[in-house]
């Protein structure tokens, strides 16, 4: 039975984990897979979510033939080898009737007796002055007891709307389609959930998602027997605190809508409480198979340069930098999806891996992410994609608005490989855009803007991240002169050079003579063939294949 893969990303941290996951798809770690992705949030303007949507959209543009937005097809042993289908569901708390717990629960409405009972029950669980009245449109603000309740009912409310067919918006339509795919996959589904356990939306949702989906499918189809989370393989991250941000100041807290603001100094306690919950909760124990415990053993740093003293609670300004732990979460999804077929048992499995930390420095190897068996595969693929990014952005100037991928196609044309001349300028720009998000770009003021891999590397400085320091140059002059074939720490994987032959020369020779896409790579569109060609040329040059 072919397994169907599903990813659910929840909240700001979940989105950044998804960002890392998408980059793993781009480097080719999920060969020949079609993956259904659901993003789930309450903060529809969240900067992290917008950035992730944009990333997936660009990924799909790169894979689509010009003018068609079908996201291409799954391929084998190439870049962008998985097909990603994105579904976006968010619970809308933006209107005045739905922007606080008090309003959404209609406290204060109805007859006096009902009203009094509702208020008493609410007061029992939720602080009246703060938790019941803060503005929900920036998420649940680390109030997981409120968040779980509202997220569960938000999903069921959407399911009721779908059932009744009344005035469905895009979020409900996307949820309906995602649930239909999940239901149709049945026991062949593997579902991985990204989110933190210490924050708001993700922490609130991870425990209730499987059950909420079962109930929602039941409401939509009047038959919840068709989807039993206990028979489906669910995995998730148990991601504890790893970043901090400014403490909320009194001015901010004095506003009613901001009466609750997450305080990162409580994140360690939140994490501890959450872990106890996950250890003991029978629902979690019965639906999740594998939980990947991922934490940060040293002092947390801010992921954001906060320009004033206010805490950013959410919205479009919340665009935190990526962190190595989010890549660890994506690697956990890789492990979950690639574990050989196994029977689901009643017992949950907690997984973790220790990494080397000495003298205040992390020494990460590729095996730390994906295990020793797949370590070389990961290093080979991420190294190839980083080289590709540097060819396009540094050597061909794409990072600074110059030719980029177009220059590379011109070079192949000069070498009488004319198969890719039909790729349009717009299409080459899409590849450039993706690579900018992966590696780096320069702003219109010529300021360096780190992309995903630079941000990941910065999060473990002064430790090493798989490549030598030259791979992460950040000045225009140095990048222009970068030796794109000399990025690995282990010199045997750097492209060969000699007195009369540069590394780049070796690469182009191999690219033109040996790199042509093969039929078993299943590449169809011209762009997919082009990407496979580049992939093959770099892979041969990196000298991993013969091992």
């Amino acid at each position: 039975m072919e397994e169907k893969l599903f990813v659910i990303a929840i909240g700001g941290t979940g989105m950044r984990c998804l960002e890392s996951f998408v980059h793993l798809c781009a480097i080719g770690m999920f060969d020949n897979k079609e993956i259904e992705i659901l993003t789930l949030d309450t903060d529809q303007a969240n900067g992290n979510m917008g950035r992730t949507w944009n990333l997936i959209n660009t990924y799909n543009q790169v894979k689509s033939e010009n003018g068609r937005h079908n996201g291409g097809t799954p391929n084998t042993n190439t870049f962008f080898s998985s097909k990603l289908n994105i579904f976006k569901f968010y619970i809308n708390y933006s209107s005045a009737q739905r922007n606080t717990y008090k309003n959404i629960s209609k406290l204060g409405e109805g007859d006096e007796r009902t009203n009094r009972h509702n208020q008493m029950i609410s007061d029992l669980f939720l602080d009246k002055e703060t938790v019941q009245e803060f503005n929900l449109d920036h998420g649940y603000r680390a109030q997981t007891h409120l968040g779980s309740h509202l997220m569960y009912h938000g999903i069921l409310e959407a399911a009721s709307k779908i059932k009744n067919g009344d005035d469905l918006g895009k979020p409900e339509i996307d949820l309906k389609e995602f649930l239909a795919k999940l239901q149709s996959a049945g026991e062949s589904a593997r579902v991985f959930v990204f989110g933190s356990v210490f924050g708001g939306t993700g922490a609130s949702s991870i425990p209730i998602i499987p059950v909420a989906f079962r109930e929602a499918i039941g409401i939509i189809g009047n038959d919840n027997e068709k989807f039993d989370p206990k028979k489906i393989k669910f995995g998730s991250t148990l991601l504890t605190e790893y970043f901090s941000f400014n403490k909320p100041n009194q001015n901010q807290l004095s506003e009613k809508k901001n009466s609750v603001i997450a305080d990162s100094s409580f994140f360690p306690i939140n994490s501890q409480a959450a872990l106890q919950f996950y250890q003991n909760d029978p629902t979690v124990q019965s639906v999740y198979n594998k939980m990947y415990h991922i934490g940060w053993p040293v002092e947390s740093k801010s992921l954001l340069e906060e320009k004033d003293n206010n805490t950013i609670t959410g919205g479009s300004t919340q665009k935190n930098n990526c962190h190595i732990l989010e890549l660890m979460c994506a690697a956990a999804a890789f492990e979950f999806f690639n574990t050989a077929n196994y029977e689901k048992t009643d017992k949950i499995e907690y997984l973790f891996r220790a990494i080397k930390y000495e003298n205040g420095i992390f020494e990460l190897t590729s095996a730390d992410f994906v295990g020793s068996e797949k370590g070389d595969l990961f290093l080979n693929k991420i190294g190839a994609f980083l080289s590709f990014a540097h060819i396009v952005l540094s050597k061909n100037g794409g990072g600074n608005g110059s030719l980029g991928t177009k220059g590379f196609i011109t070079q192949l044309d000069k070498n009488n490989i004319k198969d890719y001349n039909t790729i349009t300028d717009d299409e080459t720009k899409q590849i450039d855009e993706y690579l900018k998000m992966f590696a780096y770009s320069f702003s219109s003021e010529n300021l360096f803007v780190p992309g995903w891999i630079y941000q990941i590397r910065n999060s473990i400085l002064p430790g090493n991240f798989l490549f030598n320091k030259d791979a992460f140059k950040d000045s225009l002059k140095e990048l222009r002169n970068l030796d794109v074939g000399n990025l690995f720490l282990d010199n045997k994987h750097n492209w060969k050079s000699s007195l009369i032959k540069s590394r780049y020369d070796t690469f182009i020779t191999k690219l033109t003579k040996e790199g042509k896409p093969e039929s078993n790579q299943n590449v169809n569109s011209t762009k997919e063939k082009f990407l496979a060609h580049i992939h093959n040329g770099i892979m041969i040059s990196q000298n991993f294949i013969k091992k």
Partner: protein
Amino acid sequence: MVTLIPAVAVALAILLLAAIISILIQFEGGINPKDDNKRRIVFWVFAILNPIVYWLLAYFYLAPDPEESRRAYNRFIEVIPRDMLIGVISYIIVGIIISKLAVTGKLGHWFPKKK
């Protein structure tokens, strides 16, 4: 016929030299690579050098001693232009063949495919 063999041999030797230099020119990449032009220039510079080299070789080294046989010397000098032409033609024809055989390699830049 006797003079043709050295003419063609010189052409091939010079072509070999042009090929070696063309291969030594590195692929440049970047936004404005000029390596393909450099290889073409090398090919045509050596195409021009070819008859000159052959003429110098023929005149100063291969030509018979006029004091021994003025007739043989005059006949040799007479055919040098023809041999030079044949040398150049051989150089270009073999150059085109090599370029087409190594179409995606550096020597393919001597005679690139039309779009």
